[in-house]
């Protein structure tokens, strides 16, 4: 049974250092690689009610864990200057907001549109599924394989995904392992 959370729930979480117990920043954008099946990093806001964007970013390698209440890093040096971070994180392609993209099976059936990403709580950013607005209406949750292909404005998933559409995050937590076993994945 896996504990899950959505990418939208990560936005606004404080970034806290394990060694210092300090909230050094806040999550602004969540940057995701569909091909890698995981977060590649996060852009940051400064802490404070009306505070704006922070120059520094947080690459996924520097994330110790993403939890329900905070994103943990070891210490302040985990935050990177944009020139020291991967380009995708330092200069996110704001026009490539995945939310709203079509989800298509390899066979060409549309399952709906991406409403949110679903991540494994406590990991350093592993994406295990999508929350979708179903083609027929209503919300659903689909598990994802470890890697995915992107074609323009659509995300392509294996055909058997159609059998695994869940009604809630709890159902998805239970479905992920079975789904991956069916695909012959770890």
């Amino acid at each position, binding site marked *: 049974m896996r504990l899950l959370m959505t990418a939208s729930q990560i936005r606004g979480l404080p970034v*806290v*250092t394990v060694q210092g117990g*300090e909230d050094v920043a806040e999550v602004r954008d969540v940057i995701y690689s569909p091909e890698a099946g995981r977060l590649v990093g996060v852009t940051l806001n400064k802490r404070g009610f009306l505070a704006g964007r922070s120059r520094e970013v947080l690459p996924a390698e520097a994330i110790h864990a993403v*939890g329900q209440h905070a994103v943990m890093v070891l210490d302040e040096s985990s935050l990177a200057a944009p020139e020291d971070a991967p380009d995708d994180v330092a200069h996110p392609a704001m026009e490539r907001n995945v939310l709203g993209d079509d989800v298509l099976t390899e066979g060409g059936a549309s399952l709906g549109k991406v409403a949110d990403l679903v991540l494994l709580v406590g990991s350093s950013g592993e994406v295990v599924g999508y929350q979708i607005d179903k083609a027929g209406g209503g919300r659903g949750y689909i598990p994802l394989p470890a890697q995915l292909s992107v074609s323009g404005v659509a995300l392509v998933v294996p055909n058997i995904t159609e059998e695994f559409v869940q009604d809630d995050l709890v159902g998805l937590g239970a479905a992920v392992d079975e789904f991956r076993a069916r695909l012959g994945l770890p």
Partner: protein
Amino acid sequence: MSESFQRSAGRKVMSRSSAKELGAVSHLLVDAQQRQIAAVVIGRGKKAQLVEWAQLSGFGPDAVMVVDEGALQPPADDRERAAAEGRLELVGKRALSERGNELGKLDDVTFDADTGALEDLLIGDRRVHAGSLLGSGSYAAVLDESQEPSP
């Protein structure tokens, strides 16, 4: 002998050499990595001063004895200033696991009055060994993942 942060708040601080009363304990500054009390904050606001644990001749149930008055120093750096302002106080601090999940609020912390070594952290009705403490600061006390609630 075992002592607690809550019980020792407000305790009289005296100079051993002159028997003069120097003030009262307002906060205890902790070195989380050493799991040890680093210093005692005496007094509040602009007048707050710190005494290093090594400069205490005894942390007794009725009074904290300082070697002499000269051991009291105004805050020397950002961390000591934060401690003097109470921002690093462990009692009432949010307890966070290293996995990023909230565990509750630290209600109290016990320590060995002879050595200053931290013993237990009290979170609600749970008693957690201080060995689980990975770090603490103004936002949270971070505990290792052995403290994660079971799924």
